[in-house]
């Protein structure tokens, strides 16, 4: 078990969220907003900004957990043309709602973070790619950007300096695959969103063929705080290796579903029982997805698992996008897995064969099982399809994630799969009928 912490060492992202009208520039600024961007533009070099973020230990919160400063340092400094920060605001991982929550509460925090990141890569333009369904966050960001322009914080002379800085918006139109960074870039360029093969990596050839760093909303929203308080202060939070705080969204069968900022390293029991109020009355938590639907499930007996990102990796799952989906004993694992496979099959972009074909195979197999037409053969198919989807056979991780759902639910709940496949019995339904 990795190091555990029970208390949050002071919020970072949600520090000001109790303040009314935080989405307005004057309110945001009255609390200290935009001081970081002003300081960066007037007093710092790009290298100093990257160093400060490196000290903080900040890693990408979109799911990939990649060190943010390192990603920025990959962007070539001597490139003559434009360089871009692209903000991945295409949050669509089932169970994850934290980016929406951050944008709705504090759009200026993201704008400031995106501008600081642009400065760190010596760029002048950040593009926020926001999913099309997020109408309200889009409108709030649009208005916030206009406010920042009107104040002279964005524009040709950002904060009166000679440094031009702009943040722009691009709306997605409904495709989970756009959360994958190269698919997002394709979409931003006006194409069907299909992942690119790498190399070249976005840092070399990203948006519109130019060097690009793609960062998640939460990652960039953390940056202004780090620049205000220093990387060392941020690094005091978290565990030995996984620094800082993060947002989690708790949904499903809990009493208080919601978005919570946690210090990395607290246990899932703390998050689910203390923050989210625990199981519904008379119910027991059977299973939870620790980091979005793509993270391998953990059984309810493992609630004491740490949210330490490295520890989660070491036990074969991940903290992912922070979407914690909780399911209690009134729901059937096989039906839940079948629903998620329907999602992955539908959202497959169709470019790589294992994902395109495997997802649909899995869906049809689940349908047979749930229709009472299952047998040992169906269980074997699921195992083989799960294997075929995984292990880097595709350009992106969508297929792997689909495989992980099958594999991890079968591993922990083989009895439910057998009851359905071999005996056409749903023990969950049966138990409820007798209750």
């Amino acid at each position, binding site marked *: 078990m990795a190091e555990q912490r029970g208390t949050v060492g002071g919020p970072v992202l949600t520090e000001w969220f109790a303040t009314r009208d935080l989405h307005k520039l004057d309110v945001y600024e009255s609390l200290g907003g935009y001081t970081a961007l002003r300081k960066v533009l007037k007093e710092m070099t790009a290298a100093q900004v990257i160093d400060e973020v490196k000290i903080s230990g900040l890693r990408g919160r979109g799911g990939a957990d990649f060190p943010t400063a390192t990603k920025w340092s990959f962007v070539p400094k001597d490139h003559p043309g434009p360089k871009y920060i692209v903000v991945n605001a295409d949050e669509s991982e089932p169970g994850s709602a934290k980016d929406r929550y951050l944008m*709705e*509460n504090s759009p200026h925090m993201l704008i400031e973070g995106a501008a600081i990141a642009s400065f760190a890569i010596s760029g002048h333009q950040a593009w926020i790619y926001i999913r099309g369904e997020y109408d*309200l966050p889009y409108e709030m960001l649009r208005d916030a950007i206009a406010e920042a322009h009107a104040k002279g914080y964005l524009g040709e002379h950002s904060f009166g300096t000679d440094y031009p800085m702009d943040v722009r918006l691009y709306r997605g139109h*409904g495709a989970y695959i756009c959360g994958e960074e190269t698919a997002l870039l394709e979409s931003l360029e006006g194409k*069907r969103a299909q992942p690119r093969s790498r190399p070249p990596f976005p840092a070399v050839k990203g948006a519109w063929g130019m060097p690009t760093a793609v960062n998640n909303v939460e990652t960039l929203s953390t940056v202004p705080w780090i620049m205000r308080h220093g990387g060392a202060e941020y690094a005091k939070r978290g565990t030995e290796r996984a620094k800082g705080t993060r947002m989690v969204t708790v949904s*499903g069968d809990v009493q208080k579903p*919601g978005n919570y900022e946690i210090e990395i390293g607290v246990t899932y029991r703390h998050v689910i029982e203390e923050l989210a109020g625990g199981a519904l009355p008379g119910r027991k938590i059977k299973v939870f997805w620790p980091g979005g639907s793509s993270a391998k499930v953990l059984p309810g007996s493992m609630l004491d698992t740490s949210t330490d990102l490295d520890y989660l990796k070491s036990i074969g799952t991940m903290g992912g996008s922070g979407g914690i*989906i909780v399911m209690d004993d*009134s729901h059937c694992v096989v039906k*839940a897995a079948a629903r998620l496979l329907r999602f992955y099959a539908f959202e497959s972009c169709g470019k790589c064969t294992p994902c395109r074909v495997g997802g649909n195979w899995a869906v049809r197999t689940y349908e047979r099982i749930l229709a009472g037409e299952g047998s040992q053969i169906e269980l074997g198919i699921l195992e083989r399809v799960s294997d075929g989807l995984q292990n880097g056979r595709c350009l992106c991780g969508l297929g792997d994630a689909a495989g992980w759902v099958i594999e991890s639910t079968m591993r922990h709940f083989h009895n439910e799969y057998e009851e359905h496949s071999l005996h056409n019995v749903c023990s969950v339904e049966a138990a409820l009928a007798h209750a």
Partner: protein
Amino acid sequence: MSTLPAHVLDEIRELPAKYPQQRSAVMPALDLAQEELGYLTPEAMSEVAVALQLDPGYVEGVATFYTLFHLEPIGKHRFYLCTNLSCTLRGANEIVKHVRGAIGVHEAGEVSKDGLFSYEEVECLGACEYAPVARLDRRYQVDLTNQKVDALIAERRNPVVQPPHPAAPLAQPTSPRSGEVKPPKKRTKKSG
């Protein structure tokens, strides 16, 4: 005689200047066309292609990839009902059934007789803490119940009751769900 009015085509022709490469204008342009017509006809897609100097097949390829582009008529008010896992655990399937009955259609995509409503089952809308959730008229409707659905439909059937701008439940988002206590729902019928 084109399908899209001249002013829309003018607006579309101005879009490419906003982007480093003009191809990026294709989705914003399709947006404008869809807003004008309600959905994308083959003619409209061709006109977008001509206005942006792109191949019509290319434009159609983009339009068919993304779920928010509609290639068939939809109701004036469309329910985008999330049925992904978090919403399903909270009774989304019951909501789907209720919407279907309340607007009098048999399946997703079918438009109600009065032309006002249609629905679609969609993947995760990213508001899982408010499950079950729907997107309707560019706003999220949260913590859905059958009664809430009925009220939303009634407001839109009767224009007197309908506010000029549909209520925005998340418009003052400084109250995080985090602090709220949500009473556990009575679940009479299991959905998953």
